[in-house]
C-alpha cells in the first residue's frame, strides 16, 4: 500500500498495512472497553449486569487474544506457525476430552497429538504443499484406523475411529490452513501474506461478534433452534453483511479488488457460520454447553475458533485457485 505522505517506517517489524489493521482493531477494542466500563457503572438491573459482566470478560479475553495474535504475526512465519500449532493442540485436547474414546484408542491419540499434529505444521514450515494437503486425510486416516485395530478393541470401532479422524480434521487439518496462507505465492504481494492471515481472522471473528451484537439487538427468528438457540436470522444477516462490508473496506491490505474482497469476506462469513453451527451440533450431541473453560467469557478454545475451522481451508483454497501462481496448470 502507498501512503499519501512520506514517512520512513521500514524499521517497523510490521508492514504498514498490517500496522493499520492492528491499530484499527486496538482502537475498536479500546472503545469497546470504555463502553463496557461505562455500562458496568450505570446498569443496575440484575439481568443486565450479568450480560455486561460477560461482555467485559469477553473484552478482556479479546485484548489477550489480539495481543498474542499481533505478536505472532509480527514475528512472521514462525510465530504464526507456533501459535496456530498450539491452538490446534488445545482444540484437539478439548475435542478428545468430549469424545467417547476407549483404551484401545490411546496409542492412536498419542500419535495424533505428538506426531501428526507437529508434522502437519512442520510441512507448512518447509512449504511442502503437496504433502501438507494430503498428509492427514490420506496417511493420517489410514494410520489411525490401523493403529486402533491393532489394539484389538472392536467395540464401537467405526464410531471411535471416525471420531478421532474428525477431531484431527477439524482441529489440526482445517486450522492449519490459516498459517498455510503464508506459503501462497501471489504476484505483487510478496512478503505480505501475513495480511491475508490477518484478513481471514479479522473477518471471521468480526462476523462472530457482529452476529452476536445484531442478534442481541434485533434477534427474533431462530435459524436452527434445535442446534443453537442463540443464532437468529436477524443476527446472521446483520452480522454477515456488516462483516462483509468491513472486509471489503480493508481491501487495500489484500491482493483483492474491493469487490473481490467483499466476495472473499462473504465466503469467510458463510463458512464461519457453518463451522459454528456444526460445532454447536457436536456440543449438543455430547450434552455440553461449551468445549472448555480456558478463555474467560468465551468458553474453550474450540468455542472461539469453531468458525475459523471451516473458513480457513475454504478461504485458503479459493485464494490459491484464483490468485496463486506457483503451480497453476491451465486445462
Amino acid at each position, binding site marked *: 500500500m502507498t501512503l499519501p505522505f512520506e514517512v520512513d517506517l521500514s524499521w517497523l517489524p510490521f508492514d504498514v498495512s498490517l500496522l493499520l489493521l492492528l491499530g484499527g482493531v486496538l482502537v475498536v477494542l479500546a472503545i469497546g472497553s470504555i463502553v463496557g466500563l461505562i455500562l458496568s457503572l450505570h446498569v443496575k438491573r440484575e439481568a443486565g449486569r450479568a450480560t455486561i459482566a460477560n461482555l467485559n470478560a469477553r473484552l478482556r479475553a479479546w485484548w489477550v487474544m489480539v495481543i498474542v495474535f499481533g505478536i505472532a504475526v509480527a514475528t512472521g512465519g514462525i510465530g504464526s506457525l507456533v501459535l496456530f500449532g498450539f491452538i490446534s493442540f488445545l482444540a484437539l485436547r478439548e475435542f478428545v476430552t468430549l469424545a467417547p474414546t476407549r483404551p484401545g484408542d490411546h496409542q492412536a491419540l498419542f500419535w495424533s497429538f*505428538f506426531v501428526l499434529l507437529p508434522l502437519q505444521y512442520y510441512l507448512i514450515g518447509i512449504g511442502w504443499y503437496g504433502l501438507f494437503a494430503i498428509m492427514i486425510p490420506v496417511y493420517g486416516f489410514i494410520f489411525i484406523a490401523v493403529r486402533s485395530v491393532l489394539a484389538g478393541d472392536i467395540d464401537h470401532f467405526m464410531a471411535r475411529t471416525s471420531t478421532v479422524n474428525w477431531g484431527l480434521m477439524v482441529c489440526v487439518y482445517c486450522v492449519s490452513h490459516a498459517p498455510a496462507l503464508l506459503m501462497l505465492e501471489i504476484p505483487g504481494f510478496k512478503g505480505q501474506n501475513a495480511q491475508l492471515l490477518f484478513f481471514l481472522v479479522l473477518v471471521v471473528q468480526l462476523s462472530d461478534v457482529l452476529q452476536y451484537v445484531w442478534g442481541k439487538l434485533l434477534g427474533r427468528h431462530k435459524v436452527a433452534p434445535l442446534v443453537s438457540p442463540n443464532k437468529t436470522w436477524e443476527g446472521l444477516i446483520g452480522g454477515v453483511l456488516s462483516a462483509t462490508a468491513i472486509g471489503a473496506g480493508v481491501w487495500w491490505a489484500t491482493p483483492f479488488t474491493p469487490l473481490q474482497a467483499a466476495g472473499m469476506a462473504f465466503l469467510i462469513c458463510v463458512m464461519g457460520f457453518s463451522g459454528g453451527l456444526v460445532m454447536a451440533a457436536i456440543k449438543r450431541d455430547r450434552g455440553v454447553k461449551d468445549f*472448555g473453560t480456558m478463555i474467560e467469557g468465551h468458553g474453550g478454545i474450540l468455542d472461539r475458533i469453531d468458525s475459523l475451522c471451516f473458513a480457513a481451508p475454504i478461504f485458503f483454497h479459493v485464494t490459491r485457485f484464483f490468485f496463486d501462481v506457483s503451480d497453476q496448470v491451465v486445462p
Partner: protein
Amino acid sequence: MIGALLAKVARMISGARPVWIKPIEGDAQRIFFANHTSHLDFMVVWSALPASVRAKTRPVAGRDYWAKGPVRRFLSAKVFKGILVERTPASSPSEEKRVAARVSIERIVEEMGTEYSIIVFPEGTRGSGDEISPFKSGLYYLCKLKPDVQLIPVYLDNMNRILPKGEALPVPVLGRVVFGEPMEVRRNEPKEHFLARARSALEQLREEHG
C-alpha cells in the same frame, strides 16, 4: 521448589481443574481418599491442593513401586515425603496379609503424627476407570485410630484416559479433581457399612460432577 515445579507440570499434563464442593479451611489433619486409575493420580491430587496444604500432605504409596530406581526414590523421599508401605501379593496367606496390613496402618499413623495429612487410594490398586472397586479395610482402621482427622473424598475424572494402566505415554485429555464434603466414621458404624458409604461418596461425586 522441585515440588512446586512438579505440581505445575502435573497440572499441565492433566489439565486438571480442581473443583471444591466445600473449600478446605484451617490446617486440620486430613485424609484425602480418591479413586485410582493411573500413575498420575497421586500427583494430580497433590498438585491440586493449595500450596500450604500441599506442603503438609504426604502420599501413602506402595514400596514396590516407589523404592525402585534412584529417581522414584529421590522423589518419594525428598519431594513428596511419601509414606511407603509394603503391599503383599494377593496370593499370600490371609494371616500374613493381616499382619502386614496392621504394620502398615501403624506406620501411617506414626508418620502422620499430629501434623501431616495423607492421600490414600483405598481401592488398593489401579482400576480400568469403568467402575470404582470395593475399598480395602485400611481406611476404616485408619479413621478409627485417628478419629479427629477430616476425611475428604476426592473424585479423579479422566485420569485413566490420560495415562491408563499399562501405557507409558500420556495423552493430554483434560482431567478434573473434585473434592467432596468432609465425612467421618459414625459412632458404632460397622466396617463394611462405612467402607460402602465412603465408596458411594466417590460414586456420587462422579455422577454429579464427572
